Every structure is written in structure tokens, then in C-alpha cells.
């Protein structure tokens, strides 16, 4: 009986933009064998860091190390005929191929469903691209910043009431993560379908749609009420706000349900709030938040953040800390759950990584391998798996294909 949920599955990843890397990592961390195909110059994530002491090194980029755990790494120039033929051989032995080349680049690199299906009619091929495989903007250039704009997310983040401050990007590469996450989910669904007799197929994933599909109540505000949304701060209910505490740390103040608010009024020792019409319920509080906010701010500022967090939670009020990354790495709760895992890499050393978002009782999420060094598994994969002879491999190397 397999020990891992996805043991026995082979996934080929051809990724250059983080999305395919994350999606394939999700599959790898639950036990699939992922063969990551990099250009001979390496995944561009090897160049972006962060690096120890800021010193660039292709085997020490934090982004690459994090996104590529549990994978076998090979190098292959798929822009050339020879490399493309090897990719076909990899695809022929794989259950799925996940990539994030935009349509025109994919076409130029022979990374089309027609070509991959010809090598393996049962394969699940997943293409994660900014705007999908069709539509008038499919070839638009994109970045994580512009995709937050195109998905409707960028508009809603920023400082309300200050027209000089532009819409604000959420940290990092969230559209790429969402694309990878949806890519893993859809690929997993199709693989499960195939295990029950379903067909191989092509899955077209649009990052723009992945964002538009998770915008909370933003889109229905238009289709139900024809109301344009404004930047964060104008919430339909309150309190949902962030304040600085006496010790300089920040706290997130939140009441979703009315009983939580009632318990907060008790905690504040301000019984008169319960009688104020301007604070009557969560919707009324939202309408009057500009007036109520200074009172809340004053009260919060008398507390240290962690004390207030614990006092609120003791009353089952869902306050939360505004965590720094240092706080999180030191968190007793996360330590008890083993969330951060130490990964030993031959060049980068031992580093704690963010770990599993879920714990499966029978088939644990686990780190078996650190991210591969560039071309680390060329011999094992091209020779061992594909059965290429040493002479063939040498010839491909000489031609720059691998």
C-alpha cells in the first residue's frame, strides 16, 4: 500500500514564472514524482533571491529553494529540436505536465497540447497563463502586478479616503500562487477522473479568472446592486480594523457575529456602547465607523498587543495579531504543530521553510528532498528513466540541449 497520497504519479513541470513551480510543489509534497525541466541557464527564480547576505548564487535563491522541494531537476533546451524530442519522451512516461508558458512562447517552444498528446494521449496537460488560451488579450504581457489589476484585486487595496495614494499591490507573487494553486487543484481533479476511467485532457487556466473568482463580495456588488467598490476600509460590517498598541505592535480588531461584539463591549467595560444607536448592529457600526473608530483606537492604545489578543480570544472574540515574520517563526503554536520544517540543501545549508498547510492522517505531507541543484538529476532521469545511452546524453550535452 502506498505511504503517500500521490505516490506513483509522475508529473513533468516546465515552469518559468512561479505558477507552475508552486502547483507542481503541491503535488510533489504529497508524494508525486515531479521532474522539473529547466532551461540550461536555470529557472529565472534562481536569480531573484533572496540570498544569504544578499550575495547572488544560483543554488541559494530562497524563492527557488522554497518552490521546488521534493522535485528532481533536469536541464533541457526545449527551444531546439533535440531538446523537444527529449521532452516528448518525458511526457510519454508522465501522468501530467504542468507549465506556465504564455500561449505564443508555448507555441514557439512546441509546448502545445497537440504535440504533448501525440507523445502521450492519456496525459493531463495543464497550462497556467495570465489570460488563458483564448480571447482578445491572450497574448498580453503580464506580471504579478498587472494581473492583480486585471483580476480586479488591485483596485480594492489601498488607503481609503486618500486620493493621492494609488491602488496598492499585495505583497509578493499572489497571482502566480493562485494560478499554481488552481493548476494543482484542476490537475488533481483530472488525474482523479482519469483513475476512474476518464480521459487525458488539456486544462486551460487563466490567472485573471483565478483572481476574479476570489474577490469576496466585490463582483456581486455590481451584479446585485450596481455599486462600484472602493478601496479597503469601506467594509459592510465593523469592526474590522487595524490599530497600533501601547508596545508599538499592531492588532487586528474583528467582530463578525453580534455575540462577539457584545463580548467586546464587556471587555472594553463600556456598557453604554450597548445602548448607542450608532453601534446598534454590525451594519450600523459600519455606517458610523468614522465616528466610532477614535474611541476604539483610544481603548486599544492602552493595551500591549499580545495581552489584548489573548484577552479577546479568552472571550472568543476573533482578534488577531498583525504578525511579523519573526513572530511567526517563534510562535509556540506553530512550533507545536511543526509548521516550519528544516530542509538541508547541499549548497544553501539548513534553512527553515514554510511547511504543510494540511495534515493528512494516513498520508503525511513531507519533505523528502531539497530543491534540486541545476541539472542534478540529468543522469538519473535521462539515463535511468528514459534509457538514453551515455553516448546519447553526451551528444545532447555537446549540442547544448541539456
Amino acid at each position: 500500500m502506498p505511504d503517500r497520497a500521490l505516490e506513483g504519479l509522475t508529473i513533468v513541470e516546465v515552469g518559468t514564472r512561479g505558477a507552475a513551480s508552486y502547483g507542481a510543489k503541491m503535488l510533489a509534497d504529497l508524494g508525486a514524482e515531479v521532474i522539473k525541466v529547466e532551461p540550461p541557464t536555470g529557472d529565472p527564480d534562481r536569480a531573484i533571491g533572496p540570498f544569504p547576505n544578499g550575495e547572488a548564487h544560483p543554488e541559494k535563491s530562497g524563492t527557488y529553494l522554497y518552490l521546488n522541494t521534493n522535485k528532481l531537476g533536469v536541464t533541457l533546451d526545449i527551444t531546439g529540436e533535440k531538446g523537444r524530442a527529449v521532452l516528448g519522451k518525458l511526457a510519454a512516461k508522465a501522468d501530467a505536465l504542468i507549465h506556465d508558458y504564455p500561449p505564443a512562447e508555448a507555441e514557439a517552444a512546441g509546448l502545445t497540447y497537440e504535440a504533448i498528446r501525440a507523445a502521450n494521449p492519456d496525459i493531463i496537460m495543464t497550462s497556467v497563463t495570465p489570460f488563458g488560451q483564448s480571447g482578445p488579450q491572450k497574448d498580453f504581457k503580464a506580471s504579478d502586478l498587472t494581473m492583480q489589476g486585471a483580476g480586479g484585486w488591485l483596485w480594492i487595496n489601498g488607503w481609503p479616503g486618500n486620493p493621492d495614494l494609488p491602488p496598492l499591490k499585495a505583497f509578493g507573487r499572489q497571482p502566480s500562487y493562485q494560478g499554481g494553486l488552481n493548476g494543482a487543484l484542476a490537475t488533481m481533479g483530472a488525474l482523479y477522473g482519469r483513475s476512474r476511467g476518464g480521459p487525458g485532457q488539456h486544462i486551460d487556466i487563466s490567472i485573471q479568472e483565478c483572481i476574479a473568482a476570489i474577490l469576496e463580495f466585490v463582483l456581486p456588488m455590481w451584479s446585485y446592486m450596481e455599486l462600484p467598490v472602493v478601496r479597503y476600509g469601506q467594509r459592510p460590517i465593523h469592526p474590522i480594523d487595524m490599530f497600533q498598541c501601547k508596545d508599538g505592535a499592531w492588532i487586528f480588531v474583528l467582530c463578525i457575529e453580534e455575540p462577539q461584539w457584545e463580548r467586546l463591549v464587556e471587555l472594553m467595560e463600556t456598557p453604554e456602547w450597548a445602548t448607542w444607536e450608532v453601534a446598534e448592529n454590525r451594519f450600523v457600526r459600519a455606517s458610523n465607523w468614522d465616528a466610532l473608530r477614535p474611541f476604539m483606537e483610544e481603548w486599544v492604545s492602552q493595551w500591549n498587543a499580545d495581552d489584548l489578543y489573548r484577552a479577546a480570544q479568552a472571550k472568543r472574540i476573533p482578534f488577531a495579531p498583525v504578525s511579523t515574520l519573526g513572530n511567526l517563526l517563534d510562535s509556540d503554536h506553530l512550533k507545536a504543530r511543526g509548521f516550519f520544517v528544516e530542509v538541508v540543501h547541499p549548497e544553501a545549508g539548513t534553512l527553515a521553510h514554510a511547511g504543510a498547510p494540511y495534515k493528512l492522517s494516513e498520508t503525511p505531507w513531507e519533505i523528502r528532498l531539497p530543491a534540486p541543484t541545476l541539472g542534478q538529476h540529468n543522469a538519473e532521469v535521462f539515463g535511468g528513466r528514459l534509457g538514453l545511452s551515455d553516448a546519447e546524453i553526451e551528444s545532447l550535452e555537446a549540442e547544448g540541449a541539456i
Partner: protein
Amino acid sequence: MAGPLDGIRVADFTWVWAGPTNTMQLAHMGAEVIRMETSQHICTLRMFPPWPDSKPGPNRSGYFNQYNQGKRAILLDLGKDEGAAIAKRIVEISDVAVENFAAGVIDRLGFGYDELRKVNDDIIMMSMSGYGATGPDKDYVSYGPAQVPMSGLSSLTGYKDWQPMHVGMSYGDPTAGLHAAFAVIAALFYRERTGKGQYIDMSQWESSMVVIGEAFMQQVMNGAPPERDGSHDLHMAPHNVYRCAGEDRWIAISCASDEEFGALCGVIGKAELASDARFATITERKANEDALDAEVEAWTSQQEPFEAMEKLQAAGVAAYPPLVNQEVMESPHLAARDFWVEHEHPEVGVRRHAGIPWRFSETPLAVKRAAPVMGQDNEYVFGELLGMGSDEIAGLVEREVIR
């Protein structure tokens, strides 16, 4: 041809946003999802706006209706012994059970994994609490909006030299829901091969941290997090949101290479900037970013945002305006891709909802029906699935078990 989860049934104990996002993904792939609800404690999302004509009602929320598409819903008071017994009969004929209460709540309700296994040995049960099922703070309560500050994402997001920011939505909810759906299907895949179900302990807090993994690497390697710097990027410049002509109009622009920067200089009529010593390479552009942003904005501020987008895209430069909700819903690109779902709904009529962001070539997926009104599928579930007669169902209504 059927969706990949056709024939899979999900006993859905979830509410608010994270849990329903999970089960909607499963419905998208063909699973039959049965929401267990009661009028005695109505799902928070049903009570939230937007509502047509500003008129509230548990079946009128666009927020609820967006994230519960394709599901079925029944009314059942789980606090009553008879109600609990019926819920277990539903679990018995289900493949998956999902809940997103705070840790321990589902056990107190009598539907913990050990109890569910007694009626269905190979059930896959997914708990998706805020803090996870173990650890010293496991009993704490949490919601998606709190996951953004808790995860560290707020401390990383913000204008330069300003306070931490939120990210504009309860990002922790959908991120948890999508990760959860992935884990459920992985467990189904395992069950298909081994016959074994399992319990999945998912923490919404943790699923919000895995999407900033590279920032943790920075902290671990160098003892300090990335600094808040607005919409700038360490490796691209220009990379910002620039003011356009008109009130509160903007465009996001990013250049990933010297070539793209050169193309941008051409579009904005300042070809000389590409060879300007201040901007010739990414290193110089980052060092002189304020001056660079001023040059770009001098042009964008005279432009209508969509025209600027077309000009820049024609030259191969990544540019897109931050779309407001109406613009997303009226996007010609999304219309051409047939992204929207517009099913008839008995109380709100035909409304536009975001659809499925994946296209399957051989087994096309479709949202089967609009989000359910409360109790919509009582007859189907109690009658057809559980085989109760109409008298029996009427008795349950009379005894306020179905309510």
C-alpha cells in the same frame, strides 16, 4: 461526458467563506454537495450584502450566492437527536465530509471524525479551522480577514514608510478553500487505490503562510523581512501603479527587462531615457526609481488608462489598469472566454457570477445550478436519497427537526 468528481457526494457542514469555497470547487468538478443548514443559526454569508434593491434576506445575498453555486441545501436541526441521526445517514451515503468550525466544535456537536467513521469507515473528513486541530491556541476563533494580518502578509504589504496594510479582501478564506479542495481530491485519489479514507487537519492560518514562502526565506536567511515598498519590485523597474487622466484612474505598468524599458520609452515619446545613465540598467533604474516613476507618470497622467494599456501592450510592455468591479464584469476578454455564469434564481432572478477558472478540453465543466435557497433540496435529500415518505418528512417538520 461527466466531470471528474461525478458520483462523489459531499456532506457539507461548512459556513461563512473558506469552507464553502472548498466545497464549491468540488461541486465545479461534478460532486453532489449537500449543505446542512438550519434556520436556527443561519449562515453568516446569507446575511451579508449585496442584496438586490438593498432588501436583505437569507436567499438574496450575492456574496453567498457567488460561493455556493452548484450546491444543494437542506434544513436540519443538528441539535436535536433526530436531526443528528439523519445527518449521520447523509454522512453514511457520502464520500467526503467538510467542516470549518473552530477546533473541537464539530466534536462537541457529535460529528467528529471518530463518530463519522462509525457510520462510514472510509469517509474522508476535512476540518479547516483557523488554527488547526492541535497546538496550544487551537481553540481560538478566527475568520478569513484575520488570516491576512496573522500570516504576516499585512506586515509585508504597504506603502513605503507607512503602517502595515490589509490586502483589500479576506484573502485567507479562498486560499484556504482552494488548498483544502486540493487535499480532499488527493485523499480521494488515495482512497481509489487503497480503499482507505482519512482525516485531514487543515489550518487556515498555515495556508495563508504558504503563499509568502519566499519572504520567510528572507527572514530565515538574513534575520529581517522584505521591507514594505508600495507596489515596487526588487527586480523590475518601472514597476508601479501610475496616475492617469481623470479622477482616481490608474494604470499598473511593469518592465521585466531593458528591452521592455526601451519599448516603454518609445511609447511615452522619450526614447532618450533608455540610454540615460540614470536608467540604462535595472541597477540604475532601481537607484533612481523616484525620478523614473516621475518620468512615466508625466506621460500616464495625460492618458486614458485603457488607451495607455493598448499602446503599451502593442509595444510588448506589461500594462493593465486596476479594474473596478464593473469593468471586470464587462471585460470583453472575459466575455469572449465565456467566464460568467447566469442561472435563474427564484429570489434574485438572473445575476452574473464568476464561473470556473479552468477549462477542461474533454470533460467540460459547468456550474449546474444557482446557489440554493434555504431548504431547497429537502425533498430530494430526505425523500429521494434517504427514502423517507412524505408523511415521515411532514412529521419531521412538525417536530421541528427539519427547520
